[in-house]
């Protein structure tokens, strides 16, 4: 586990020392691949049974699940970055110094997210999440370009998230306090031990805890109405980073909520937590669907769609029960494959047309057939239409809702999903079709980087499609072990 944490740090340092050499990209790719190799055995063990280490670190199904997503997206994004950064350098948006900063921070970012997933101590988890904010904010704002909009986005991002997350820390403190009153002697912050004493904790205290944590980590996870930093940050960040942000960062934040959920629920009962989560889920879906409908900027559109999908995940978690949680976790996976794919694609479109405004971009399908096709598939997947992956998880959650008889929730869900479908499809069909008369600055596609870029995107698109019609057993069992680590053993 320590090694897993060390590898990205080392990679970061190397990348930073390389002074923006052209090879830096390949080094970072090698680093992330190495990370993947090193992590495989640990993750495999973690899926079967929880491992704890050094008191502060702990891994079980859930952490392994999120961690493998972090690592996968780390690889994808690192590979994508090679040509992306190359192109940025070519068009002069970035200098050597920027490159070293970019890759250095990139791997630090990965490191912080890994730390979130493996930390057993709630305060440590908080530290890690706060750290992700800081690192990614720097990546957005000062990463390499000093565009005012990027700075504005970063400023809002860091302020809102820091403010929000403060409450999460407060919640953490109160948890510690509540544990004192149970243990008598002195409090604990270790999730594994808190889990044991959870039923004994004071319900009203834990309600307070959950409110603070929900507001805190909810801000970071982009639940409306705490989401306002998200569209700015995601649309202004360089595309590989946007991919990481919406693909996995939001999920790590929500991971924090899930951890607290399994401490809070035993004492307060699932009704309180469930209703709160469902409420936030519905609000997020509603607001985001409206914004998607009238969005004029395709990266912001994708950002709002992230809010919608976080809403769906929160809804699934709130509905509760093994199958709803299964759906939520599956949705996390599906979303964090499809959304990064779309951000990668939009990054290339932006590089080609030099604009993120929908009305400035036309005829992608005819000009860049490969890219256009992937975008088309990705957009449909995000819009939640079969035979793509996201429909499956959405339907699973809906089914769980029907099981519980939550018809108003189901109805609202369907309405919002339809609106979102309309929004996304109308937005992207305006981009994809038609013939563009706007002259474009063209996209250089020579070099091995470009090839790798395309390979990665193709693989992700394939996964999006395959997961829509076939869920392999290892994924299934992984998700179930994740569900177990939230609901406790004995589930399935």
């Amino acid at each position, binding site marked *: 586990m320590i090694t897993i944490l060390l590898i990205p740090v080392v990679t970061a340092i190397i990348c930073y020392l390389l002074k923006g050499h052209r090879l830096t990209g390949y080094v970072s790719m090698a680093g992330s691949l190495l990370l993947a190799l090193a992590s495989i055995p640990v993750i495999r063990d973690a899926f079967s049974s929880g491992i704890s280490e050094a008191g502060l670190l702990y891994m079980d199904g859930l952490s392994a699940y999120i961690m493998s997503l972090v690592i996968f997206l780390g690889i994808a994004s690192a590979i994508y970055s090679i040509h992306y950064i190359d192109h940025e350098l070519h068009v002069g948006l970035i200098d050597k110094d920027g490159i070293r900063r970019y890759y250095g921070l990139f791997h630090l970012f990965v490191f912080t997210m890994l730390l979130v997933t493996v930390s057993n101590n709630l*305060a*440590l988890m908080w530290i890690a999440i706060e*750290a992700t904010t*800081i690192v990614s904010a720097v990546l957005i*704002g000062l990463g390499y370009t000093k565009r*005012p909009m990027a700075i504005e986005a970063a400023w809002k991002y*860091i302020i809102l998230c820091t403010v929000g997350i403060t*409450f999460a820390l407060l919640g953490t*403190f109160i948890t510690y306090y509540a544990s004192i009153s149970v243990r008598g002697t002195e409090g604990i912050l270790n999730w594994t031990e808190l889990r044991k004493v959870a039923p004994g904790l004071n319900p009203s205290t834990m309600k307070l805890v959950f409110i603070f944590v929900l507001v805190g980590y909810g801000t970071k996870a982009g639940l409306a109405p705490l989401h306002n930093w998200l569209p700015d940050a995601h649309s202004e960040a360089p595309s590989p980073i946007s991919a990481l942000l919406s693909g996995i960062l939001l999920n790590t934040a929500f991971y924090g909520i899930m951890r607290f959920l399994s401490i809070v629920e035993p004492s307060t009962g699932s009704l309180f937590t469930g209703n709160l989560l469902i409420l936030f889920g519905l609000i997020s879906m509603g607001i985001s669907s409206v914004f998607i409908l009238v969005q004029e900027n395709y990266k912001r559109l994708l950002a709002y769609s992230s809010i919608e999908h976080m809403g769906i995940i929160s809804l699934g978690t709130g509905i509760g029960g093994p199958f709803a949680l299964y759906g939520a976790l599956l949705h996390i996976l599906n979303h964090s494959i499809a959304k990064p794919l779309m951000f990668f694609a939009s990054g290339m479109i932006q590089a080609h047309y030099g604009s993120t405004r929908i009305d400035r971009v036309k005829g992608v399908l005819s000009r860049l057939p490969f890219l256009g096709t992937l975008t088309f598939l990705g957009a449909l997947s995000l819009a939640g239409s079969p035979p793509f992956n996201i429909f499956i998880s959405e339907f699973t959650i809906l089914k769980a809702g029907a099981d519980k008889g939550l018809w108003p929730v189901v109805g609202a869900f369907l309405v919002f999903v339809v609106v979102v479908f309309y929004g996304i499809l109308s937005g992207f069909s305006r981009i994809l079709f038609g013939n563009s008369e706007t002259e474009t600055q063209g996209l250089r596609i020579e070099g091995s980087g470009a090839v790798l870029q395309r390979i990665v995107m193709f693989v992700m698109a394939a996964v999006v499609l395959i997961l829509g019609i076939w869920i392999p057993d290892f994924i299934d069992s992984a998700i179930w072990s994740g569900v177990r680590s939230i609901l406790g053993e004995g589930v399935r």
Partner: protein
Amino acid sequence: MKNWIEVFSIVDFVSVGILLTAVALNGMRRLESSVKAYAVNSWLLSALIGIVAFMIGEFHLYAASLVTFISKGVVIPIFLRKIVREMKVTHEVEPYISNALSLTISGLLVAIVYASLKEGIFITGFSRNVLQISLAVILIGLFTMITRRKAITQVIGLLFMENGLFLAGFSLTYGMPMIIELGVLFDMLMGIIILGIFAVQIKRAFASSDLDKLTILKG
């Protein structure tokens, strides 16, 4: 042995002082003075930590109190004043709403906190009121961030929130494992520093430290 009652009263006294400095922040007109208010607030905080340390004789709490004093009470104020100077902003706070109104609202916030944190949540320990106070401080800090126009004042508001947080932390938990405290502290420090840098950047990019200019991204 220590006289509990007395200590109690002292704890309350100090924490109320923290609250008052926070409220006072809403009355401040000039940036320097709000920075001062923060400094005082931090000193009181470290003092409180010291008292707690003295009570339960935890060594690392003394250390924590010391660290708090140095970082929050000395380093950050100096850093802030430096930024204020080099940004050469007008030294007015320029709130959106009148100080009187913001004072009333902050009072209201305190009331809300006391009303909503009902009995039965905090039974044990000497910190019955302290949590309310700290939460009030946090909310007031947030409120300040909402009402103040300048980037730098937002940083100050954030700092107040953190103080409130630390107050809660130490009073509720008698201090957590050292590493955690240090980690939290370090995070905070990093955050503040980054924010400071950003504030400067904003000043450069937007030719103003008014956050009103930061509304390019909308919709």
